[in-house]
């Protein structure tokens, strides 16, 4: 018994001393290297991201301060900020943002309500794919903007026209992406389901859906970004309110600072929604995180 404590310090010393000093230095250097798909400290990630925004802001400020162009073309950050404060105080900004947010939520939900089940069906049943995929692919290539005139003819300039435009711009992309997500579910998962006695609805619900859920969530995240584009298009054409309307009226009066403000708010809202979905996705689909890195 007494031998063991005697030996322990010796082995421990040997263990520490064994790697040559050069090895330690080399290891330290390797850790600092930036590699393809390499890891990054989250704090560094955030710092770099914040710095990128700071650089953009500084470049803007500099361009405006040096009077490279007139204020009419490029307002300074300060001008845009004070305009933002002004419009926030009188409530214009809040209600415009709310209207846009409401429209995109409803339009995107309608699109998803159709896109998700149809995408899953055409990803799993070849017959459904044959019936639906080619026409969807066909319509997908028609520019959604080209539907603006006909959407007004059909639906007028009311709210439903906005939803229709968001739907046209989002749904046809969403369906094909969800189909692709579902097709990537390993066939063996489905085969296991069949040997366990499950039938098609059970397999779709208990195997295909959970297996493809993380990828589908990413699809929703990406298509939500596109939906914003169509929302603004819809509001620029004919809307009594919303951020697109704010931008359009500002253009009439050459209020470039308001235009910039509207664009920035849309960008910030998009960024916030995207980050929120990323965080929710990470929480809910934690099991997939190790695979995705």
């Amino acid at each position, binding site marked *: 018994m007494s031998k063991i404590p005697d030996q322990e310090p010796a082995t421990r010393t040997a263990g520490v001393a064994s790697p040559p000093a050069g090895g330690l230095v080399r290891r330290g250097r390797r850790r600092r290297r930036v590699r393809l798909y390499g890891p990054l400290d989250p704090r560094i990630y955030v710092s770099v991201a914040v710095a990128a925004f700071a650089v953009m802001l500084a470049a803007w400020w500099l361009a405006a301060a040096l009077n490279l162009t007139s204020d009419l073309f490029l307002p300074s950050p300060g001008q845009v900020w004070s305009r933002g404060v002004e419009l926030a105080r009188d409530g214009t900004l809040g209600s415009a943002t709310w209207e846009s947010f409401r429209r995109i939520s409803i339009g995107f939900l309608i699109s998803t309500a159709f896109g998700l089940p149809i995408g899953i069906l055409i990803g799993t049943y070849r017959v459904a794919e044959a019936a639906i995929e080619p026409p969807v692919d066909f319509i997908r290539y028609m520019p959604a903007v080209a539907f603006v005139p006909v959407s007004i003819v059909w639906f007028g300039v009311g709210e439903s026209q906005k939803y229709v435009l968001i739907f046209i711009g989002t749904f046809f992309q969403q369906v094909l992406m969800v189909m692709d997500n579902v097709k990537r579910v*390993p066939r*063996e*998962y489905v*085969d*296991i389901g*069949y*040997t*366990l*006695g*499950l039938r098609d609805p059970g397999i779709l619900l*208990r*195997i295909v859906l*959970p*297996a493809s*859920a993380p990828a589908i969530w990413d699809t929703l995240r990406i298509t939500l970004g596109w939906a914003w584009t169509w929302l603004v298009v819809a509001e620029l054409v004919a809307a009594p309110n919303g951020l697109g309307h704010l931008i359009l009226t500002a253009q009439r009066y050459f209020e470039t600072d308001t235009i910039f403000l509207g664009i920035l708010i849309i960008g910030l809202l998009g960024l916030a929604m995207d980050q929120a979905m990323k965080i929710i996705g990470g929480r809910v*689909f934690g*099991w*997939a995180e*190790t*695979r995705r890195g």
Partner: protein
Amino acid sequence: MTAPKLSVAGLRKVFGGDEQALVALDGAAFDLVENEFATLVGTSGCGKSTLLMIAAGLEEATEGQVLVNGRPIDGPGRDRGMVFQTYTLFPWLTVQRNVEFAMRAEPLGKAERRRVALEHLALVGLEQFADSYPSQLSGGMRQRVAIARALSYRPEILLMDEPFGALDAQTRQLMQELLTRVWEQHRLTVLFVTHDIDEAVFLSDRVLVMTNRPGRIKLDVPIALERPRRFELISSPEFLEYKAQLLVSVREESLKTAGSAV
């Protein structure tokens, strides 16, 4: 006499049609009696996996049929469990829930289902990983869970398609020992597919050699090695004799493909 547990009768399988038709199986036939451990060996592409998929009901035969207890099968069913080469645990469920998933259709209470799942995880030595997710396990551990899952709901026949094919040699050997031990305790009819002759001899009561495409049963070798089987067996003269006989038989088939390809 009672009907054989599993009967494969005159199986023919043709993929594609016309000029591109590929005859994977042609006249494959054999019977397995209850609690027999049989292995199909053959060169890659000889149709052994296709045969297993047909037996599982996941592929349809062009001609012929598969019978369980004398009754022709109609698609997949809970009487036949399956273990694949690829990792098929559901990554969104914990190890324990993966096993419980297989027992969904059993008339068991929640607590009972949990107990049976843990019991089967203990059988493969993984009860302490019940709450882990598959991504946290090694390849060998995942296959052990897959075996536990396949056994948990007590299918009459276990179909195994190169279940250790993706594992390294050392893990593979350990897995073979584990499977033998489990099978010797809980007998059931097994149809195992591999291209590894050592694995086939070590595990089986009977080894069936398949011809090259189109696949048929070429040689049927009963393995009269005593049980329980241990690691030391693989260097015994009897083991090596079986191995040599089977190697020669499979090699003939490999040479045919090599000849036609070169």
